[in-house]
């Protein structure tokens, strides 16, 4: 099951010569965020980029002063201010007619929770920012506490018996802001991911990418399994892959096969779901319901699942 996230995609002339995230960074082995940076390096290519990273694992990724593992100018901000600091940077780039792409790379805590007001306000103002949420469904940097992105049933250090509440629907929230572009991204589907990253980089105004980001440390999974886990989440319908343009045009990019087998494998390959007793059967109704809504929004009348 091991494979590089760019399986089948070779580096071309137009690609960025050096990776955005260099070797020698502080990420755990198998961190999905490292894969995201790898993909993003290709998508960014020759563009002028500035990174904004709030308090999260990404802030540690850079390693210690004065070296930086990031190959672009980067600013580390307080937890709740990625989108506001990025606003200032994008504004000054605009004043100076620079083509700079300002990219926030934030975890789910900084996006779903503490940074929500800042994020929402920047989206409402349609700032020229690409906001990427690498969603590992946990406060990874503080040792694995629940966030409002943690799925029901997952054990975290602050929900030792498994979280009770469902995961917040961040995409619905972002779509409700009518931003030019929002998309969910699977790192197991490199071509789709690259297309979306490129679209997001080329679009002006506020763009949001939601990326499921395996966290071996928090998910209690094998580092080598990350991409496979995302593939299982996509196949089973647990992580829908779609785009939303201007908050109203929904495009489903990958059709899952809603396989219960995939869902059961997704759960069993992580130890975080062991205690709470979530199973493919308990998750299925929620998935069906979500897909029903998604299909309505996308205008596609396809049965929600095969029986």
């Amino acid at each position, binding site marked *: 099951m091991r494979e590089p996230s760019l399986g089948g995609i070779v580096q071309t002339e137009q690609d960025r010569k050096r990776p955005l995230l260099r070797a020698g960074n502080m990420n755990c082995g198998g961190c999905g965020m490292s894969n995201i940076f790898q993909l993003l390096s290709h998508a960014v290519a020759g563009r002028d980029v500035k990174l904004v990273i709030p308090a999260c694992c990404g802030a540690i990724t850079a390693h210690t002063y004065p070296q930086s593992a990031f190959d672009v100018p980067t*600013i580390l901000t307080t937890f709740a*201010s990625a989108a506001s600091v990025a606003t*200032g940077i994008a504004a*000054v780039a605009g004043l100076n007619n620079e083509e700079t792409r300002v990219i926030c790379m934030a975890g789910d805590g900084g996006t779903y929770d503490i940074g929500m007001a*800042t994020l*929402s306000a920047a989206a409402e103002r349609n700032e020229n920012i690409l906001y990427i949420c690498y969603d590992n469904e946990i406060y990874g940097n503080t040792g694995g506490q629940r966030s409002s992105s943690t799925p029901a049933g997952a054990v975290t250090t602050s929900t030792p018996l498994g979280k009770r509440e469902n995961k917040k629907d961040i995409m619905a929230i972002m779509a409700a802001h009518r931003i030019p572009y929002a998309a969910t991204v699977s790192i197991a589907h490199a071509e789709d991911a690259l297309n979306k990253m490129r679209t997001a980089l080329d679009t002006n105004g506020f763009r949001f990418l939601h990326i499921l980001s395996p966290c071996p440390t928090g998910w209690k999974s094998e580092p080598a399994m990350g991409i496979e886990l995302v593939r299982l989440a996509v196949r089973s319908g647990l992580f829908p892959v779609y785009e939303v343009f201007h908050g109203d045009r929904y495009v489903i990019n990958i059709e899952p096969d809603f396989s219960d087998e995939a869902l059961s494998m997704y759960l069993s390959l992580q130890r975080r779901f062991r205690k709470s007793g979530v199973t493919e059967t308990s998750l299925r109704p929620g998935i069906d319901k979500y897909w029903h809504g998604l299909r309505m929004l996308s205008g596609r009348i396809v049965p929600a699942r095969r029986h």
Partner: protein
Amino acid sequence: MPVELISANHGAGLAATLAGRANRTGRGFCCGVYPITPATDCMEYLCAQEIEKSKVVRVESEHSAMGVCIGASATGARSFTTTSSNGLAYMAENCVTAASLRLPIVLVVANRTMGPPWNIWADHGDSLMLRDLGWIQIYCADNQEVFDTVLFGFRLAENAEVMMPLMVCMDGFTLSHTIAQINVPEQDMVDRFLPITTVPHQLGSTPHALGQIEVAHQVASHRRQHHEAMEKVFHVYTDIQDEFQQIMDRSLPDPVVSYRIEDAESVIISMGTIGATAEQVVDDLREKGQRVGSLRLRMFRPFPMKSIRENLKTARRVAVIDRDISLGFGGVLWGEIKAVGSRNGLIIQNYMMGIGGGMSGRSIFAGF
């Protein structure tokens, strides 16, 4: 030089506008602003201005207002914002970032009591709460001083040897809403006084990270550098004062404003508008034959220890007036004055006045 009859809030907004325009050939001017009483008028004034090469972002909180300033300043623009009281408390986290990243942001604080229980009147407790972060803090006594200090503040904050954020404090309502005459320089005078902003460590095109983790000895040496830069403020201050005088043709007060201090046995020490009242009280008492003087601290951080010591040479009794209280200790200013002023035979007493916007007029002094 035209004279405007405006409030200190509008004066601060006007000074920021002129300073913003002065950076039009640089990387521009960018602010995040959010309303809070009594600083709101300053923000409203700014939002109504058309400033070449500028953007004022109307954000959703003070935390984000400072966030925008951080982003703008980190990419080399001139940056300004304004707040009060709980707004400053809410902004505080990002004020730490601004200071530690050594970004020359100018912040106008219309001092106001912290709540709840809610109170909108003057009290220095809000800005003093941020005493230790590495911001320069200047307290003003009249509208002209507020206006001049904003211009001066950018020059000081952006000085290569100083390079840190600066707070211009004014008593809420007492100054912020009082309309008085302000001499307003022409744009070309401001252009001459305020060169374009250069942030040597700005995020440009070479990869480097601002604000990444540091280990203990790195933090310690950065703190030390910051502290040393604080100490340089005094001599840079004097240099800029001279230039201000030459270009604007008027003087800007010293970090410590002394009044009839030469032979004073009793000295009143205070900050902000109470300092102006204290000077009148000194006149009253001098008429009664008492040898009284006043020291008004304009600069609170860095703390002008040397100047205070020199000014207390003849003193036997010192009355420190605090428009604040550090609960469980006493007046904040009193604590600082005791730390630098103590010597045998010198009595340093603490008085609280005007807390929560309470009376601070001349008659109140009589009760002391």
